Structures are given as structure tokens and as C-alpha cells.
């Protein structure tokens, strides 16, 4: 406080001197006083920056000495990245296996359906006594072939459905991995809060303004993602309001 008053006093004297110089037209002297005034201001600034830098340096050093932090940066976070990559790999593999099984099964189902339709038409003719003996012999062969085909396809379909079933095993494994990563994120969050505290910042959440250029990806319940639609009906309403 004492220092503050001293500085104020000096500045007041300098300001008076400046006015005096200007009034009698001593421009050179006036410039010198202005320079000195600016220097006082700069010195204050430098001292303040120096003090802040030292405080920050000490605080960060103290923070880094916390062994948990270095463990997180050197081990846990790289591990978490690996884990999450593995989640992507597993879910992708599962989707691939499922899709392959479905892609193999659909044509078999279509084939059986088509053949059953044709046979049913012939069978109806037979029941209405519209088939000759030769026609019936043909139908009988076709029926036998169809039954064999059904047997083969059923066993393939069974196998494909089992593949689809087993491909869902990723859910359990990825769930466990993701839960571990959530724990780590929680840990990091706590450390960051501590860091914000020691650097003297206030924990104020600025109103997050959503940037229209940033793609948000899928809507996640419970996460603020700006003005989003929640389902296809909303999309349709919005588009029709635009004249679609």
C-alpha cells in the first residue's frame, strides 16, 4: 500500500512536470517525461509477469511430482488408446462376421421360398386332379430334390445363425474395456480439476456455444449437443417445413 502511494505520488509529480513542459512548449522534455511514465508502467508489468511465472512454475512442478500423474501420462493413457482401438477392432469384426453370415443366408432363404412357391402351385394342381401321371412323376422328383435342398440349407442356416449368435460376444468384452477407460477418464478429470485449482482459475463453465462447423456425430442421450433432432420424424417435419 505504501509502495502504491509512492508510485502514485511520483506519477502525479511527473504529470505536473509534463503539463508544465507542454505549456511552455518544451516538447523534448515533455517526450522524456512521457517515456519515464511509460517505463514505470512497464516495470510494474514485468514484475507482475515474473511473479506469476514463478508461481505457475512452482505449482506445475508440485503437480508433476504427483506420481499418479506421470503414471497416467506414461502408462494409462497410451493403454487406454490401445484398449479403445481394440474395441473398434472387435466391434468391426463382429459386424463383419454377422454381415457375412446374413449375406450367405439371405440367398438360401430366397431360393427355398421361390422353390416352395413353384412346388405349391404344382401341388395345388395335383390336389385338384389337374396333373397327368407324367406330370406327377416330375413333381415327385422335384419334391424329393426340394426336401434335400431344404435339409442342406437348414443345416447351413443353422450354422450361420450360430455364427451370428457367437459374434455378439464382443458386447461383454468391449463393455469391460470401456468401463476401465471410463474410470481412467474420471481419474484424469480429478487431476485436471486440481490443476485448475492450483493455478488459481475459477471453475466456471463457459456457456458452450456449438460451432456449426463441428460435426457432432450420433446423438447421445444426456449430452448437450446443440439444437438436434431426436428421430426421423423430426427430420421429416423440419424438411417439410422447408418445403420438401
Amino acid at each position, binding site marked *: 500500500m505504501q509502495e502504491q502511494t509512492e508510485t502514485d505520488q511520483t506519477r502525479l509529480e511527473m504529470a505536473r512536470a509534463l503539463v508544465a513542459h507542454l505549456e511552455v512548449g518544451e516538447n523534448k522534455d515533455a517526450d522524456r517525461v512521457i517515456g519515464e511514465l511509460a517505463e514505470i508502467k512497464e516495470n510494474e508489468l514485468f514484475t507482475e509477469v515474473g511473479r506469476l511465472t514463478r508461481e505457475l512454475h512452482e505449482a506445475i512442478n508440485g503437480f508433476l511430482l504427483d506420481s499418479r500423474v506421470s503414471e497416467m501420462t506414461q502408462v494409462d493413457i497410451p493403454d487406454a488408446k490401445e484398449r479403445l482401438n481394440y474395441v473398434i477392432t472387435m466391434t*468391426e469384426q463382429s*459386424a*463383419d462376421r454377422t*454381415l457375412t453370415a*446374413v*449375406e450367405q443366408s*439371405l440367398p438360401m432363404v430366397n431360393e427355398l421360398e421361390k422353390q416352395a412357391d413353384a412346388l405349391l402351385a404344382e401341388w395345388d394342381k395335383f390336389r385338384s386332379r389337374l396333373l397327368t401321371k407324367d406330370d406327377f412323376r416330375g413333381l415327385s422328383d422335384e419334391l424329393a430334390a426340394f426336401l434335400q435342398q431344404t435339409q442342406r440349407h437348414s443345416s447351413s442356416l443353422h450354422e450361420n445363425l450360430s455364427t451370428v449368435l457367437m459374434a455378439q460376444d464382443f458386447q461383454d468384452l468391449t463393455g469391460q474395456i470401456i468401463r476401465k477407460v471410463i474410470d481412467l477418464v474420471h481419474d484424469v478429470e480429478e487431476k485436471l480439476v486440481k490443476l485448475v485449482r492450483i493455478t488459481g482459475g475459477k471453475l466456471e463453465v463457459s456457456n458452450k456455444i*456449438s460451432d*456449426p462447423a463441428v*460435426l*457432432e*456425430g*450420433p*446423438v447421445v442421450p444426456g449430452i448437450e*449437443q*446443440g*439444437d*438436434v*433432432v*431426436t*428421430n*426421423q420424424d423430426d*427430420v421429416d417435419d*423440419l*424438411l417439410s417445413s*422447408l418445403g*420438401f
Partner: protein
Amino acid sequence: MKILIVDDFSTMRRIIKNLLRDLGFTNTQEADDGTTALPMLQTGNFDFLVSDWNMPGMTGIDLLRAVRADAKLAGLPVLMVTAESKREQIIEAAQAGVNGYVVKPFTAGTLEEKISKIFERVEG
């Protein structure tokens, strides 16, 4: 009817491809982003484009704009199938000239409805 499916995830391309096949559209090709899709569109005589929005390289909205800016492709019907659900983005796509917008996750029924609506309008 020749259709180009553009999505960076092969799983999603396969799902759309299978749904389209079920709807009777068997002539489909795939691209993993706008940069690969655009030359295919320019030379491939496609009748319809189904595109995701968020892709590395060239995004779906940029692809849509490139299509509309290309004299030969300007009239190509484009269906956006994307997880992006911000109102301003849907409006942006509409202003860029999209013909339909489906948000993921979607059902086979929704896809079919939007596609048939687009063709009704294009042919009608």
C-alpha cells in the same frame, strides 16, 4: 438403376447395400469418401447417390455441393444417410440440394420410404 454408396465404414456400406438389394436394387458400387466417390460419379453413369456426411477426406456435404456444381451430375438424386442430427446441418443439406435425409440409426422401412419418395418426385 445404378447406385453409389459412400460411407467411410465398410459395415455401414454393407448394411445399406443389403437393404438396397432387398428393395430390388442390385447394381450398387461403394466408395469410402467424397474424394473417391466424385470421379466414380463423373464416369460411372450412376442414377442415385447414397452418402454419409462425416468422412475423412471429402465429406458428404462437400460431395453434394460438388455434384450440384457439376453440370453433368447436377440432377443426380442424393440421399444423405448420417448420424449428424443438428437442425442447422439438416437445413444446410437441404439448402445444398439434398433430396432426402435419413438419420442413423435408421430402419429398413425408413430407407425404403425415403428412396421411393425421391423416385416419385424425380419421375413425377
